[in-house]
């Protein structure tokens, strides 16, 4: 028992050290932090990992944030989150603001406070090169058109009527399906088209700009009026003095709408160096270049694998411990405890893990219980798997003949002692295989924690493959890593089973 406690303490310690922010040894008088949220998976050119150096986070919004923070006297700190959870992240205090292509729409304004637009753009129609051109929304009627889920363009396309709208989470999937002939066209924000369609020889731009899209910085509703006012005045200055123009030129994003809004008619203030760098870094390469690229992924994938294992192991420790308690309640707990455990197990098994995860992380703050994403992730996975473990262990306990318990009672052990020394050790042997099974399953289910801003293996796969437009090679690589991660635990389980089975076969003495 003390050894188990030691292991748990070591685990928690290793996790704490691995995930603690690097010690904040900022000198006295250093600038206060300004934490800004974004989704790395939103890809280029917003906020994304530099394809040339995946350890760096770049993007035109990163440049805007750096300038903005400098002028307001803050030190900018980026916080990654799932795109769909960006606004809920404001409410849980994960960051102070969001800058990530959030459109200033009435729906968004109902959920958060928005700054003045820092960028104004439009929807760009893209088709396969050589297909007949499409002029505008009307020309899309009757066609199958891909766009991003929950984007303003999705709303515009649906409102146009008679368009078969197909929605996606990742922009590169939209263009991928267009090239494969699954869709006839795509309409997405101009910056996306510039970065993912323009460099692609198989695709071309067509038609007029669609709609008007304004990106704004989002803050928690009603929480920081002073900060919002400061941001607005700093943005106004950046728009007026050409700073924004220069940033957007470097990223090849300046639009006619920006020119109109700022009254800045100058054509080009800076070379599109960031755009060129991106195109160069993501160009299809030889297999040798490809291999070198994969080698560059390895450190990042390594850390992601560590995160996956830590989350999984901690969740499993919780699941096993709580599962044992639930199983004991069910088998030996008497009517009341049995019923309570039964209700818990049915409720947990009967609802999706994803909902439990979102509920614990984004739902509980509503009643004043705000958890760190890491804690929330481990808690959700652990509590969920505990329900399944409990049923495994119940089966294990029931498989031990009643006589074993009686013999222990007759030796004057208490019921507790009998369980601990007689019944549970024998049941443990029986439940090792199903528990191993569940752990392997948990290792993979741990990927769900990416919805609450944690970056682990699957999330990293998504980020890398969307950056490089390469689901294939990266997929094989990540698949192999998952497989390798599971193996040691399978071996451990075999050893445990052998160890616990001593005396269970006639040959083993």
């Amino acid at each position, binding site marked *: 028992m003390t050894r188990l406690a030691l292991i748990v303490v070591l685990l928690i310690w290793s996790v704490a050290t691995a995930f603690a922010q690097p010690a904040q040894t900022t000198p006295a008088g250093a600038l206060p932090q300004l934490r800004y949220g974004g989704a790395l998976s939103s890809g280029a050119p917003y906020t994304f990992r530099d394809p040339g150096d995946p350890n760096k986070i770049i993007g035109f919004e990163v440049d805007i944030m750096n300038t903005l923070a400098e002028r307001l006297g803050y030190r900018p700190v980026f916080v990654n989150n799932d795109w769909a959870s960006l606004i809920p992240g404001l409410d849980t205090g994960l960051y102070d603001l969001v800058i990530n292509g959030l459109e200033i729409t009435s729906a968004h304004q109902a959920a958060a406070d928005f700054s003045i637009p820092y960028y104004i753009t439009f929807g760009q129609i893209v088709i396969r090169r050589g297909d007949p051109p499409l002029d505008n929304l009307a020309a899309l009627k009757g066609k199958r058109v891909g766009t991003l889920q929950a984007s303003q363009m999705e709303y515009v396309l649906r409102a146009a009527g008679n368009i078969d709208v197909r929605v996606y989470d990742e922009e590169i999937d939209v263009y991928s399906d267009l090239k494969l002939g699954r869709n006839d066209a795509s309409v997405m924000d101009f910056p996306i088209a510039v970065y993912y369609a323009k460099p692609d020889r198989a695709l071309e731009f067509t038609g007029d700009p669609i709609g008007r899209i304004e990106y704004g910085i989002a803050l928690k509703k009603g929480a920081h009026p002073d900060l919002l006012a400061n941001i607005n005045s700093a943005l106004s200055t950046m728009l007026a003095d050409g700073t924004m123009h220069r940033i957007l030129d470097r990223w090849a994003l300046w639009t006619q709408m920006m020119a109109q809004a700022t009254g800045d008619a100058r054509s080009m203030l800076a070379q599109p160096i960031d755009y060129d760098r991106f195109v160069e870094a993501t160009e299809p390469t030889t297999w040798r270049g490809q291999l070198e690229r994969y080698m560059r992924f390895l450190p990042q994938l390594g850390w992601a694998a560590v995160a996956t294992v830590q989350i999984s192991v901690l969740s499993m420790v919780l699941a096993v411990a709580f599962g044992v308690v639930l199983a004991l309640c069910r088998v030996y707990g008497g009517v009341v405890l049995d019923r309570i455990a039964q209700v818990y197990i049915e409720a947990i098994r009967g609802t999706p893990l994803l909902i439990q995860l979102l509920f614990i992380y984004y739902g509980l703050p509503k009643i004043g219980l705000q958890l760190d994403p890491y804690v929330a992730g481990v808690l959700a996975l652990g509590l969920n798997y505990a329900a399944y473990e409990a049923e495994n262990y119940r089966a294990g306990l029931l498989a031990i003949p009643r*006589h074993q318990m*009686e013999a222990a009672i*007759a*030796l*004057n052990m208490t019921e507790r*002692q009998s369980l601990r020394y*007689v019944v549970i050790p024998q049941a443990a042997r029986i439940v090792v295989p199903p528990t191993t099974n569940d752990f392997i399953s948990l290792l993979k289910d741990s990927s769900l924690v990416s919805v609450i801003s944690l970056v682990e293996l699957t999330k990293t796969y998504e980020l890398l493959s969307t950056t490089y437009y390469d689901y294939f090679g990266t997929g094989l690589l990540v698949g192999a890593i998952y497989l390798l991660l599971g193996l040691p635990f399978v071996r451990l389980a075999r050893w445990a089973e052998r160890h616990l089975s001593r*005396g*269970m076969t006639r040959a083993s*003495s």
Partner: protein
Amino acid sequence: MQPIVQVEDVHKSFDKTPILKGVSFKIEEGDLVSLIGPSGCGKSTLLRCLNGLEVLDSGRVEICGVAMERKPSTPAGPLADVAHKLRRNVGMVFQSFNLLPHKTLIQNVMLAPRVVKGTARDEAAGLAEKLLKKVGLGEQVDRYPLNLSGGQQQRGAIARALAMAPKVMLYDEPTSALDPIVVDEVLDVMKELDREGMTQIVVTHEMRFARDASDYIVFMDKGEIIEISDEDEIFQNPRDPRTRQFLHRFL
């Protein structure tokens, strides 16, 4: 001297079927008593009531001065503590041995003293070795139960019970699951204990043993004690016709 075991008017039903209908008897220290009777007569249930494995419905059981008593239709809860106290002086051996399969023979014998009494490991090991030698298993201490014959396992189970230093031993059909060829090695251990003055109550179908080793025999039928007799007398001259009918096959 006061009897070491006193049973007074014990009643027990399962699902409203009466199994024990008011059983009373007394046993003096050092006696070996055989409890016989047809299957379903309640003799195993009676034995299990003696150490509280079954909670009696009403009546009184006193062993070594510890008394479990229950008035009809009163809650069973308070009996649990008394039963635990009473079991300090009572060991039990089962038909199916019930040794722990995941522990070696010596670990089986050491477990209860270590867990219940907090005996030091060395001391418990020494005691276990001594007891296993006594039941003739000195060579088998490190083997697992599954690698032992039924007779060896049952002798191991007796050593395990003795490790708690009981004053009374209960046996629930200790030889029924054994090959006839190894029955004697178990019965010999019990005879040896009898010579040393152990009080033993044996539920058995082993009539030869009952006759040879018992100080007296209790015959039960349909939840009642029909006859308590001297071992020779009951076999030669049973008083009750039901006893005669039951023993008919063995005479």
